[in-house]
C-alpha cells in the first residue's frame, strides 16, 4: 500500500481544502471512504449469518458488546464472495444511529485528496457501481473510486420499494 501513499495530485493545495479518505481494496479495486464517516477498522473474527436476510448482509458481528450488521461490499458491488481469505477486514460505519461493518478485502492507508480534482464517473461504468460511487480520483498508478456511504447502506429501501 506504500505505493499509493505518495499522492498523485501534487499536494500543493492548502490542507483545509483536502478531504481524507480511508482506502479499502475489493477485488483489486481501490475505493475510498470519507474518513468522517468511518468509526473504526477491525478484523472480523466470528460472524453470525442471518437466515432469510438480504444477500448483501453477510451477518451480525459482536463489536465490543455492540451488535453490528455486516454488509459485504463485494456483494453490494455485484461481485462474488472472496475465497481463501485468511482474515477479513471490516470498516465500522454508522448510519441512522445503527452500526454497520462494511466487509472489505483489505484496508489501506488514509489519503488526503482534493475534492476539486475528483472526476465524474466514466459514462460506461457498471450501473450498479455508478449508484455507489461519487466519482473517481486519479492516483499515480491507480484509480480510486470515492464511495457514497449512504448509497452503500441504502439497499434495503430499494428492496422495500420493489
Amino acid at each position, binding site marked *: 500500500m506504500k505505493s499509493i501513499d505518495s499522492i498523485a495530485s501534487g499536494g500543493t493545495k492548502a490542507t483545509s481544502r483536502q478531504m481524507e479518505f480511508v482506502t479499502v481494496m475489493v477485488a483489486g479495486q481501490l475505493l475510498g471512504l470519507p474518513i468522517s464517516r468511518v468509526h473504526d477498522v477491525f478484523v472480523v473474527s466470528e460472524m*453470525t449469518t442471518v437466515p432469510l436476510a438480504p444477500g448483501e448482509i453477510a451477518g*451480525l458481528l459482536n463489536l465490543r458488546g455492540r451488535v453490528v450488521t455486516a454488509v459485504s461490499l463485494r456483494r453490494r458491488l455485484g461481485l462474488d464472495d472472496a475465497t481463501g481469505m485468511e482474515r477479513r477486514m471490516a470498516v465500522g460505519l454508522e448510519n441512522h444511529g445503527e452500526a454497520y461493518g462494511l466487509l472489505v478485502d483489505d484496508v489501506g492507508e488514509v489519503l488526503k485528496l482534493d475534492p476539486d480534482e475528483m472526476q465524474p464517473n466514466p459514462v460506461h461504468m457498471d450501473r450498479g457501481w455508478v449508484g455507489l460511487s461519487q466519482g473517481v480520483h486519479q492516483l499515480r498508478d491507480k484509480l480510486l473510486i470515492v464511495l457514497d456511504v449512504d448509497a452503500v447502506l441504502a439497499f434495503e429501501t430499494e428492496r422495500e420499494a420493489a
Partner: protein
Amino acid sequence: MDDLLLEFLTETNEHLETVDVEMVRFEQDPNNEAILSNIFRLVHTIKGTCGFLGLPRLEALAHAAETLMGKFRDGMPVTTPAVSLILTTLDRIKEILGELERQGAEPEGSDSDLIEMLEKMAAQEAPPPVAPAQPVKSQTSGSTVYQVLERELKPGEVSLDDLERAFQEAPGPQTASTSGSLTYQVLERPLKPGEVSLDELERAFREAPGPAPLVIEKPVASAPKVPAAPPAPAQSAKKNAETSDSGESGEGMAGKVQTIRVNVDTLEHLMTMVSELVLTRNQLLEIARRSSEDHGYKVPLQRLSQVTAELQDGVMKTRMQPIGNAWQKLPRVVRDLSNELSKKIELVMQGADTELDRQVLEVIKDPLTHMVRNSADHGIENPADRKAAGKPEKGTIRLNAYHEGGSITIEIADDGKGLNFAAIRKKAVERGIATDSEVERMSDAQVAKFIFHPGFSTAAKVTSVSGRGVGMDVVKTNIELIGGTVDIRSEQGRGTTFTIKIPLTLAIVAALIVSSKDQRFAIPQVAVSELVRVSPSSEHSIERINGTPILRLRDRLLPIVPLSKVMGLSGNEDANHGFVVVTQVAHQRFGILVDGVFHTEEIVVKPMSSKLRHIQLFSGNTILGDGAVVLIIDPNGLARMVGSEADSNEFQSDAGTEQTVAAADDMTSLLVFRGGGESLKAVPLSLVTRLEEIEASTIEWSSGRPVVQYRGRLMPLVSCDEELAIKRQGMQSLLVFSDGDVSMGLAVAEIVDIVEDKLDVELLAERSDLVGSAVVRGRTTEIVNVAHYLPMVLETWARKDRRASQDKSLLLVDSSTFFRDMLVPVLKASGYRVQTASTAQEAVRLLSGGLHADIVVTDLELSGHSGFALVASLRADPHHANTPVIGMTVKPDPQQIALARKLRISEIVSKIDRRGLLSALAELNASFEEAA
C-alpha cells in the same frame, strides 16, 4: 417557577386520577365519608395550589366543584347527574392542565357554563333535609379524627391550611361527637388489640382538645360493668375504624412510602448500562468456565456475578409498576359507558398490585381500555335482556392479573352474551376473509379469531362507544409487538374471556438456546411448553405424511417445523434426530425441530437492525456469554409462517372432504387397513364391494401382473403401496372394488377394523394415491384415493367398457376434488371421455370455449354458484339447449326436483350412488340410440 409548575402538573394529574376513581367509588357508596373527605381534600389541594400559582380558571373550577362536594358532605343526596357534572368538571380541569403543560400558561377561555351548572346544582338542592342528629355527629367525628391523622402523617403539607380551616368550620357539636368517637375507641380496643391504627388513634386522642382525657376515664370505668358492649355501638365503632382504615390506606399510597421522582430517561439509561454489565459478566463467566486454572479471580468473579444479578433485579424493580396504574382510568370508563348505554355494569379488579415493566405497561394500557370498553359495549347486555336470560341485571366485567412463570397473565372476563359466532361467520364471508364452506367447517375458537381482523365489527349498530380509537386488530398487534399473546374463550349466553399473556419485561428475557445446523438461536422461554427428544427408535419419532413431518404427542398430531428448513439452512429434510421444542402461541401449537438444545440463559434483547427487521422470524438478537451474536426467534412470527401454510392446507383439505362429510352426515364408515409401511390407511367403506382373503398360491402372474380368478373372471390385483409386495404364499387380504362385472383387488397387508368416525382430513397429501391423512380413532391414518389405482388396471377395465360405450364426451362439474377423483375413473371406465370443471363458471367457460359435451353431469350444490344456475345458462345457449344433464345432489328435495323438471334435467341422482349415476347414464344412452 417552571419547576414548581411542572411539579404541580405531575402532582395534580395524579390527584385527578385518584379523584376520578374515588368519585366513581363514592357514587356507588355515597355514605362512605372516608372517600368523600379524600376527594374533598384532593380537590381542595388542587384549588389551593392553583390559587398559589395564580391560575384563576383552575381555581374557579375547583372551587365550584368543591362547593358542590361540600354539599354532599352536608348531606345532600348524591345523584348521578351531580357526579357526572363533577366528573365533567374534572375533565375540563384536565384539559386546561394539558394546555398548561404545552404552553406554560393557562389557556384563554371561560368556564362560566360549568361553574354556573355546578352552582345551580349546589343551590338547587341546597337545604337538605336536616339529617338526624346522630349520623351528623358521627360524620363529623369521622372526618375530624381523620384530619388529625393526616397532620400526623404529613406535617407541613399545603393541605394543612385546609385542615385547620376544616377545624374552624366544624360545627358546634364537635365536642359531643368527639366524646362519641372516643367511647368507640375504648370499646374498640378490647375488640381489636394491637392493631396499628389503634396507636395512631391514641396519638390522635392525645392531640385532641381538652375534653378528651376527661371522657376517657368514664368509659374505662364503665367498661368492666358492661363487659359485652351493646352490639350497636360496637358495630358502628367497627365501621368507624374501617372507614378510618380505608382513608388511611388511600393516604398511604402517597404518604407512607418515601419516594422521589426520577426521570424516566435516567432509569432507561441505567437499564441499558445494567444490560451491558450483565453481558460483560456473562462473558467473564464464560472465560472462567473455559480455563481450568484459578488465578484467584474466581471468587471475586462469583461475587461480581451475584452483585450484578442483584443490581439487575433492583434496576428492573425501579421499572416495575403495578398494573393497577394501567387500570386507573377504567372505573371511570365503565361508569361513563354504563350511563351512556343504560346498562348496569360492575367492574371488578383483582391483582391490581401485580407488577410489570413500565414499558410493557405503556403498550398494554390502550389495548386494555379498549377491551374493557368492548366488553361493556358488546359483551354486557342491557338490564332487560339480562333479566330475560335469567341473569342478574348488573353485568360484571372482571379484570384479573397474576404472575405465571416469567410472564403476566391478564384476564378480561364479562358475563355478557358471549360472541355471536353465527354473526362472525356471516361477517367473515361478507368481508371475503373466508368462504362459506370454510367458515362452516371452522371451530368456534377459530371463528372467534376473526374479530382480530382489521375493521371487523359485528356490532349491529355503531354506538358512540364502538368504532372509535383502536380496533381489536390493533389490540392484537400491540400485544404481539411485545411478545405477548391474546386468547379468546366465549360461551354463548355466558360471557367472553380474553386472556392476555405478556412477558414481564422486554429488556431481559429467559431464552432457550438451541442449535440448528451448527448455528445457535434463542427461543423465548415464554413460548416453550415442553421439550421432546426424538429419534426413530425412541417412543417419540417423527412420522411423515407426504414428507410433512408430524409428531404424535399424547394422541394429538403436532405439526413439526424443522428449524433448518424454515431458515433455509439446508435441503436435508428427512432429519429424524434431535429435539422438538413444543411451542404454544395462542391456540396454535407446533413443534420446532432443532438439532441440539443447550441451556437457558437470561438474554438481553437487542433490536434487529432496520435492514433485517422485515424478517418476521426474528424478534431481535443478543450477545451470549461467549461473545457470539445469536438471533432470537419470534414464536409469533414462526407461527404466522407455519399458520399460513397450515391454513391453506386446511382449506384445501376442507374442499376435498367437505362433501363427503355432508353426505355421510358427518360420520363416515371407514375401512382401516395396513399397507407395507407402519402407517394405517383407510378407505371409505361405501366404495368397497367386498373383503376377500385368498390363498396366495391362487394368484397368477400374467405378463408380470398379478391376477386372480374371481367369480369366473380374471381380476387384476394392485398392491396398495410400493412397499407392500403381493404375497407368494400364505393368505393374501384383498379389498375388492367392483363396477358392473369388472373388479379390482387391492392387496393389503392386514385389515384392521371398520370404524365409524368423523372424516376430518387434516393434511392434503400431494401424492395421488392418498387423499390426505386424518385422525381416525386417535391415530394418524392415510385416506387412500381409490381412483389412483383404477388406471393401473384400466386396461382391462377400459377394454371391457369400450364394448358398451359409444365414446361420448361428458362434462363433470363438481366442486369437490374428492368426488371428481372418485367419479372420473368410473365414468372413464364406462367409456366416456371425461372433462372436469370445479365450478359453474369454469364449466361455462369450457363450453363457451368450444368444448363439446354430449352429457353434462353436475353437482347441483356447487360452491359459489348453484348448479341450477349453470343448467339455466346452458338452456339459454342454443348450442346446449338440448344437452342432457344429470344432476347430483346430497339429498334430493321436492323443490329441487320441480326446479330440475323445469330446466329439463334428465335425472337427479344421489351423490354417493354411483350405480344410480351409471344407470341414469345408461338410460340416456338408450334414449340416444332410440333417437338415432
